[in-house]
């Protein structure tokens, strides 16, 4: 237990020491999106009846921040340790792969959720947000951050250099999060893109999360959960298997 706790705390301190970059900066980025899109579109767009565009946008932005930062934390921590070589400090001790996984997972979730909370709190300054179902909000935030923390762990283990990581960031993470209905309801898309979006798990993360605030969504939260829960579990299992096999970490 001490081993796990130490690694978890170390991972938290690692990003907290540079919180300006790892927490404040992403909150600021999300707020810039909010200001620009809300300012331009608030008068013109109403996605759901009775919900202003700014209010519609908020949960999506919060979730996008959660996902991107959960991913960024585990992936950047691992790739940095690998490239600088100090990964040996956590490979030499008697940490089980389960402890290793849990520490990186939970620290990444913590950063994602912290940034998400920051965006949310700041968002209250700009718009009236209701919390229709706090339970759903929590469930989707936790599961989704876990899923992206896992993707970060796998990417961090797989990547050999920062280029690889930038590739995953640009060709997987950004498209997944942007083509997911953060800025729009997928019902406003052409039929083809609607179908494509239904294959994007992030769509369900955001849709379920948004339901927690506004009590309206494209699909029901139970449906969204039925997609997200297995996806998250599979990602956890894959990460664990990767760690257990020693893939790339213990060649």
């Amino acid at each position, binding site marked *: 237990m001490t*081993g796990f706790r*130490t690694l978890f705390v170390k991972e938290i301190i690692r990003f907290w020491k540079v919180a300006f970059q790892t927490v404040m900066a992403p909150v600021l980025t999300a707020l810039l999106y909010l200001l620009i899109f809300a300012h331009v579109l608030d008068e013109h767009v109403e996605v759901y009846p009775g919900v202003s565009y700014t209010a519609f946008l908020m949960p999506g932005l919060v979730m996008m921040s959660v996902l991107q930062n959960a991913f960024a934390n585990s992936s950047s921590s691992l790739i940095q340790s690998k490239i600088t*070589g*100090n990964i040996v*400090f956590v490979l030499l001790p008697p940490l089980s792969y389960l402890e290793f996984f849990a520490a990186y997972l939970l620290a990444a979730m913590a950063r994602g959720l912290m940034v998400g909370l920051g965006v949310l709190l700041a968002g209250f300054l700009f718009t009236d947000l209701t919390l229709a179902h706090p339970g759903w909000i929590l469930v989707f935030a936790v599961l989704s951050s876990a899923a992206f923390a896992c993707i970060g762990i796998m990417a961090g283990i797989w990547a050999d250099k920062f280029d690889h990581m930038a590739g995953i960031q640009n060709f997987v993470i950004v498209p997944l999060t942007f083509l997911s209905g953060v800025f729009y309801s997928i019902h406003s898309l052409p039929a083809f893109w609607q179908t494509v979006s239904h294959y994007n798990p992030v769509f369900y993360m955001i849709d379920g999360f948004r339901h927690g605030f506004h009590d309206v969504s494209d699909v029901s939260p139970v449906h969204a959960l039925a997609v997200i829960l297995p996806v998250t579990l599979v990602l956890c299992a894959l990460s664990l298997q990767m760690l257990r096999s020693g893939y790339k970490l213990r060649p």
Partner: protein
Amino acid sequence: MTPAVRVSGLEKRYGSVHALRGVDLDIQPGEFFALLGPNGAGKTTLISILAGLTRATSGQVQVMGHDVVRDYRAARVKLGVVPQELVFDPFFTVRETLRFQSGYFGLGRNDDWIDELLDNLGLTGKADANMRRLSGGMKRRVLVAQALVHKPPVIVLDEPTAGVDVELRQSLWAFIRRLNREGHTILLTTHYLDEAEALCHRVAMLKEGRVVALDRTEALLDNADERMLELRLETDELPPALAARLSGRAGDVYRFALRDFAEAEPLLGSLREAGIRILDMSVRQTDLEEVFIRIMAKGT
């Protein structure tokens, strides 16, 4: 008695590179053991397998009787490794680094021992300095401290004195010797063969992934059995009888191999008879470096 380290039939391939080609080795508890070999011989590879950083292609390794794969947790608790590469985490101070390392080994409060380590390694003044701000030698000391946070019975040092100044080298060896006297088993790799000769009870020499010599340090030196008589002579040429016995020459320094010191006297007599003046004289015992060079020069 369970050996501190047992390596049996160890093979490692990295793709087409055959880094270890069947290594067998036992290191007894309390030994100070040297693993020597030229660059690329496989020393670090062997240590990496021992530490669980790399997996063997085939063969087994045990630390204090614990298999490093099947029983990895028990094996790793018994092992402290100073890696060859100078690695550090730039986010933390020296003390934070050592506290985290203690925690990874399951030790909650370890400050007393950490302070003792800092003291013994001359790091007390740097305890709260960020790792980034330390000189190379200082970083090396922290690596040594990190390997020792959990007081491992088996300590592995992979070239701990590369790029380290004389003073630290002395104090480091004094400290490691003390640990060895207190019962810790030490496995050392180094390219400074005088260090190995002075410190180690036994030596294994590795070449291209095979053990080509394995014996007590004294035995290796004894088998080499030669002494070298070095004479600076005031002559350009030796009489044929003496020239036949010559084993090397550099300028006016002539080297004669002696099987026994008793051979020296007749040799000097012959020189006197030939009227050759001796300007300087010294006798050199064969050292580990010569033994090493001789063994490595043999084909395998």
